């Protein structure tokens, strides 16, 4: 029913009543009523309702509101006006009348920002989808980050916090996507494969040269996108058209044809800069962003060294696996491996590289393939010299110092210390009683961390509880029972048949509903090394709280330990919850009190946990490790040595019937975790903040 709008007289009467304390003969209600008359009944009543509400607090505020209301109605929808009013009242509460009047006066500004928020796209909302998108496009995992400048340094893509160039949210997201695509194209098609800074420094105005270069490079990249990703290219062209932008100014037309082939490289673009330097300076495109060659160069330099070394290590390892022995040396790599370049098929842009070992084609494992991809992207090829060994091939970190016995005072005879062996992979035997481990208690801390976490994830905990209850209360239908609530017809038929053939009639003719028993014991090992400081430590503790919630429902037996330590003589295991302990307030306070400590010596901890499991009776024993990186300790326990010892400890655990599993956030995990835990026994989460959310899923899948 569409009610007719109120007349001026009616509105005036109402306002006289509501605004009685703010009106006077100099400030009558009539002009306000006239301004409100042209609107719909619903809008008028909306305004009057709010006038009434505000007037209960302050009549003058209500008057200001009513004065501005017609303008507000013209620039915002009702939901926005409501936000505007609430904001003004908020300011009034906190800062008083005059600041609040200002909010009412600046209604147009508020309206504009409100529209931006509604129709604009934000980095927060879009980042995850865009990250997946970029990941899908190709190999190297590029991180997305928020920044004022829009550019890439080949390791991260930097995007603005919000985009509201268009009236429609989808179009704004499209602009985000175009920015991401443009930056991705720069890393993929080699914009930084040359020393840009040096090349452009020779010009009288390097800034100008850089902008011309960027505009030209955009043309070249656009052509490559047209070749490889036709749909994306179309979308970006539509974006340009919607904003009235052109890819290049008409005066450039004849020159840029050089860039419109698949063979054109960044060198061609650079040579064109010289020709077009004195000409027109085109306006930058909306998605172009800027170029920071020096930042890109720094990122690339670091990565190239590291990846060159990693590739050699990986090839050496492949050689050892192939031969089944450690006999091969780095020098033999170039003799046995060859890189073959093949013509691009319908699927590729440039030529592709494959590796042969002893003449036979080799299917490299995923880590090696993504390494090769990354090197290829940076250099445009994999130089043959990558196959030649240099030095002894050990990558030394800055400031690495090998200390055999880190002058620690702890001695073997200390109270409560346990001794464990350590595996030396070079000598292929254990170092007896090499590590000294102590079990310590975590200092409980009185802070509402657990309560806070429970509140933060309240919704998730609720659905977790339901989900896990279903797992636990899994009514299994046990058949062929000698007693039960229903008849098992299959069994009955068989028994009947048996009886007819002269055999005994079986007694087991019933079905019974039975809660299937989960017989699982699990130990959680949490990395408490110094590197987990900050985000990671918070996420680890939140994860523990989520886990405890889930496990309390499930009824599995569990224990939680943190581990850290410094040198072999001071390995520390922090008890948060033992197997036979209940999930009490004390345990909660210990979880709150877990703080980052020192280093990560994993082997000894795993061996200790294996020993702990000996006293536990369970059909299934699980060891789940939450870690942020490789094994690493002060006295040389790192790199190959650390990984091999940890692997040996894991094998020992497996022999004892324990299933180890690793959850990690180390993006380099794929290089070493499959070797330690096995290809299926680990999960890599690229954002530690997802850990609390994902952990119950992981646990459920593991033990279903």
């Amino acid at each position: 029913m569409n009610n007719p709008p109120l007349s001026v007289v009616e509105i005036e009467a109402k306002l006289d009543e509501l605004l009685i304390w703010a009106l006077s003969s100099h400030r009558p209600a009539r002009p306000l009523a006239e301004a409100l008359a042209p609107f719909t009944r619903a809008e008028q009543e909306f305004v009057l309702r709010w006038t009434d509400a505000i007037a209960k607090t302050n009549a003058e505020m209500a008057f200001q509101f009513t004065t501005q209301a017609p303008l507000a109605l013209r620039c915002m929808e009702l939901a926005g006006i409501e936000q505007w009013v609430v904001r003004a009242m908020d300011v009034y509460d906190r800062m008083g009348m005059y600041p609040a009047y200002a909010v009412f006066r600046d209604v147009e500004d508020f309206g504009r920002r409100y529209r931006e928020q509604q129709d604009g796209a934000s980095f927060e909302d879009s980042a995850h989808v865009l990250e997946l998108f970029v990941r899908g496009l190709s190999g190297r995992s590029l991180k997305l980050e928020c920044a004022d400048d829009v550019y890439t340094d080949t390791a991260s893509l930097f995007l603005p916090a919000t985009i509201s160039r268009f009236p429609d949210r989808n179009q704004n997201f499209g602009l985000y996507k175009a920015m991401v695509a443009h930056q991705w194209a720069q890393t993929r098609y080699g914009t930084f494969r040359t020393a840009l800074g040096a090349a452009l420094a020779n010009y009288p105005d390097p800034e100008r040269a850089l902008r011309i270069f960027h505009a030209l490079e955009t043309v070249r990249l656009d052509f490559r996108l047209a070749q490889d990703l036709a749909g994306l290219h179309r979308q970006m062209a539509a974006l340009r058209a919607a904003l009235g932008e052109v890819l290049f100014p008409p005066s450039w037309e004849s020159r840029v044809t050089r860039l419109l082939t698949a063979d054109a490289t960044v060198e061609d673009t650079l040579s064109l800069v010289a020709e077009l330097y004195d000409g027109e300076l085109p306006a930058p495109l909306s998605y172009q962003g800027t170029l920071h060659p020096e930042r890109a160069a720094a990122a690339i330099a670091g990565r190239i060294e590291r990846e060159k070394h990693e590739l050699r290590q990986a090839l050496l390892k492949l050689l050892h696996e192939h031969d089944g022995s450690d006999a091969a040396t780095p020098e033999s790599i170039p003799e046995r491996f060859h890189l073959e370049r093949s013509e691009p098929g319908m699927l590729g842009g440039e030529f592709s590289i494959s590796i042969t070992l002893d003449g036979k084609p080799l299917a490299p494992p995923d880590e090696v393939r993504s390494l090769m991809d990354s090197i290829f992207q940076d250099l445009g090829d994999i130089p043959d010299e990558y196959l030649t060994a240099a030095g002894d091939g050990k990558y030394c970190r800055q400031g690495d110092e090998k200390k055999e016995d880190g002058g620690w005072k702890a001695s073997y005879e200390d109270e409560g210390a346990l001794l464990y062996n350590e595996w030396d992979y070079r000598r292929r035997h254990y170092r007896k009683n090499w590590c000294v481990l102590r079990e310590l208690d975590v200092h409980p801390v009185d802070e509402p961390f657990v309560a806070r976490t429970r509140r933060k994830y309240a919704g998730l905990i609720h659905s977790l509880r339901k989900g896990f209850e279903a797992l636990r209360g899994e009514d299994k239908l046990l058949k062929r029972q000698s007693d039960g609530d229903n008849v098992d017809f299959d069994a009955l038929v068989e028994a009947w048949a048996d009886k007819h053939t002269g055999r005994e009639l079986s007694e087991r003719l019933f079905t019974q509903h039975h809660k299937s028993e989960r017989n699982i014991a699990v130990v959680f090992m949490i990395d408490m090394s110094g590197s987990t400081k900050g985000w990671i430590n918070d996420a680890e503790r939140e994860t523990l709280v989520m886990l405890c919630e889930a496990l309390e429902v499930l009824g599995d037996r569990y224990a939680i330990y943190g581990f850290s330590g410094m040198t072999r003589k001071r390995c520390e295991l922090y008890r948060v919850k033992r197997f036979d302990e209940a999930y009490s307030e004390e345990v909660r306070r210990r979880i709150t009190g877990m703080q980052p400590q020192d280093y990560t010596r994993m082997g000894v901890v795993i061996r200790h946990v294996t020993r702990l499991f000996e006293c536990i009776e369970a059909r299934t024993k699980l060891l789940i490790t939450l870690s942020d990186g490789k094994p690493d300790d002060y006295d040389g326990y790192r790199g190959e040595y650390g990984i091999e010892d940890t692997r040996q400890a894991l094998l020992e655990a497996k022999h004892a019937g324990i299933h180890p599993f690793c959850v990690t956030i180390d993006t380099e995990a794929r290089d070493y975790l499959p070797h330690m835990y096995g290809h299926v026994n680990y999960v890599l989460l690229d954002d530690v903040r997802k850990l609390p959310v994902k952990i119950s899923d992981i646990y459920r899948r593991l033990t279903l």
Partner: protein
Amino acid sequence: MHARVLKTEEYRITNEPYYAPQGDEIALFEAAYKNRLPVLLKGPTGCGKTRFMEQMAWRLKRPLITVSCHDDLTASDLVGRYLITGGETVWVDGPMARAVRVGAILYLDEIVEARKDTTVVIHPLADDRRVLPIEKTGELLAAPPEFCLAISYNPGYQSVLKDLKQSTRQRFVALEFNYPKPELEQTIIAREAGVDAATAAKLVKFAGMTRNLKGQGLDEGASTRLLVHAGKLIAAGIAPQAACRGAIAEALTDDSEMLAAVNELSASLF
């Protein structure tokens, strides 16, 4: 129109099923068959294991009996049981007994889903005894030379509680399957779906993109089978993007952000 009714042991494959070999798996299987060794097929879903079995059944001209394994599968489901028909008790063979009697190829799909006490039923068939004892009838079926046992499973994301025991897996010759190389996958899709080479190439590229996302939120990338589905839809006149959305994206994931990302990827190609 009604479904054709066949006895399981009569399921022979008369027309050659299309199968493009990835390596020397056909020769391996034939050698195993000649030597009466059972075969284990490992690989992700949708990469050609079942099609391979059909090809081998056609080549070797034996009937193919397939059993999809699940948690509630009992030994009598496989071997057989007594049933009452018309007041008489009659022994009815299960698929396993039938396969042995007729000398067919028995294919147990997703063997890890079955319970361990069911899996051990295949042990006597899977070593060089090649016999199937049936206690209820007191028979011992000795398999003819034409009989062949094949099992399959996906070694990907296994639960700790569901594993293939060593005592089972060490009886088999194992063949590993994977997604075909891009050029081969392109040929397969063009042939199976009836699309042109360019479209097939784009579909393969799209699959590669989804496989890049494995472990980031997708358990598995798009399998070859999904690509063929999408191709068939495209060949039937559906717009490529819609085909990818329905046949691939929605089949891979329910997570809204992952769906958005996968749809963006397909939109970027077509």
